[in-house]
């Protein structure tokens, strides 16, 4: 049954924000734009590279999040999801996972490429990918919670941003710290573990918030 749902959610996530291609195009574009507006000094670029990747990851997640629940809410599909065999908590989890697979994972793969193209150390690539993947997971779940909370209100986008942005900051801190520490040779495991813990906590807890928020919006 989860498979049925996952298939649908993947298709929707793909159509929704334009999916992987949009996010990766976004990243590519930002990587092009940055040197354009910064001037092409390699030393400067290299330091900026991974940081920018993080910002793009966060923004690209936000980009498609707003509509994660809203469409289903407005066209009545959320009613149907409530009346299915799986509890709404599972539905919300599947939605977030689909979002992550479609947007987060390709972005995680593209991040090191962009960073290296901008001049980051190639050795950092695996760490960058891992951090971006974990960060994307946290973004998808936290963002989903924001999207679900905003359902009941009239102002989607604004609220989601305001609600979600503060909660997205910790993963950015952890992830940035891990990559930065690695590049300057400091211990990087601790911040990476914190990032993982945050992502897991988000994945474990926010589904309840999402389900409650959806029920609240429907009632």
């Amino acid at each position, binding site marked *: 049954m989860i498979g049925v749902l996952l298939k649908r959610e993947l298709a929707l996530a793909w159509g929704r924000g334009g999916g992987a291609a949009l996010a990766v195009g976004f990243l590519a574009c930002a990587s092009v734009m940055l040197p354009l507006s910064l001037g092409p000094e390699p030393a400067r670029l290299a330091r900026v590279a991974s940081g920018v990747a993080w910002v793009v990851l966060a923004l690209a997640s936000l980009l498609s999040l707003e509509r994660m629940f809203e469409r289903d809410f407005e066209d009545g599909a959320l009613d149907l999801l409530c009346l299915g065999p799986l509890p709404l908590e599972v539905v919300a989890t599947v939605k977030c996972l689909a979002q992550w697979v479609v947007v987060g994972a390709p972005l995680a793969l593209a991040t090191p490429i962009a960073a290296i193209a901008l001049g980051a150390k190639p050795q950092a690539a695996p760490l960058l990918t891992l951090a971006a993947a974990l960060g994307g997971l946290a973004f998808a779940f*936290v963002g989903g*919670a924001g999207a679900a*909370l*905003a359902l*009941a*209100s*009239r*102002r989607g986008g*604004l*609220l989601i941003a*305001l*609600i979600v*942005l*503060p*909660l997205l*900051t*910790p993963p950015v*801190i952890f992830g940035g*710290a891990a990559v930065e520490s690695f590049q300057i040779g400091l211990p990087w495991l*601790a911040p990476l573990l*914190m990032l993982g813990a945050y992502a897991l*906590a988000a994945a474990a*807890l*926010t589904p309840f*918030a999402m389900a*409650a*928020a959806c029920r*609240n*919006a429907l*009632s």
Partner: protein
Amino acid sequence: MFAALANPLRFMAFSRWAAPLLGAAAAVAIGVGLVFGLEAPPDYQQGQTVQIMFVHVPAAWTAMLAYACLGAASFVSLVFRHALADQAAKAAAPLGAAFTGLALITGSLWGRPMWGAWWVWGDARLVSVLVLFLLFLGYLALRASIEDEAKSARAGEILALIGLINLPVIHFSVEWWNTLHQGESILRKGGPALAPVYLLPLLLMGAGYSLAFGALWLARTRAEVWKRRATSLALQAALA
């Protein structure tokens, strides 16, 4: 005590005298704390600016206290579906935002002489307090943008509980990351590492701020109760 106060009538009776009482206590504590604080000798490192501490640190503590109260009230409201708890949560948020703003402002006023910068991006504690501020704002915005009172309450509860994660992050940020910000010097293992000349006014101010928060919280909750009574009376009148 909470069970007793959950009754709105009893709460109104209690808060009628408790709010002014707490307010008076707060005024005394802050007044005395200020006198001691202004008389405290300049620090050998920080000079006269050390006196900012007496406004900054209690403000930061109270901001966290306010969020904890918001979280607790939201939890009670979520689990027991008690209207009063929701009104208390709604009342706590703007106060928390104000104290957080105060902590941010006094902190950056202090940062200018101490670190040579108003604000240091990348300092985990500073940023996490900013995040706390944004969380308060997000809570207020969410409540304001949902007209249906019951839905607004429920959404607020969920958000407030999610945001609780931030509290430990703020508190432990100085341990987890090497930051510019002062490490734990009072609530740490092995007792406070602060000379009594500084500790006494700091604690007095801390008590004063918390009492002031308590007084304002009660008053605002009272106002919220009145407001809802008024709207439901107006509705009954309209329906009749």
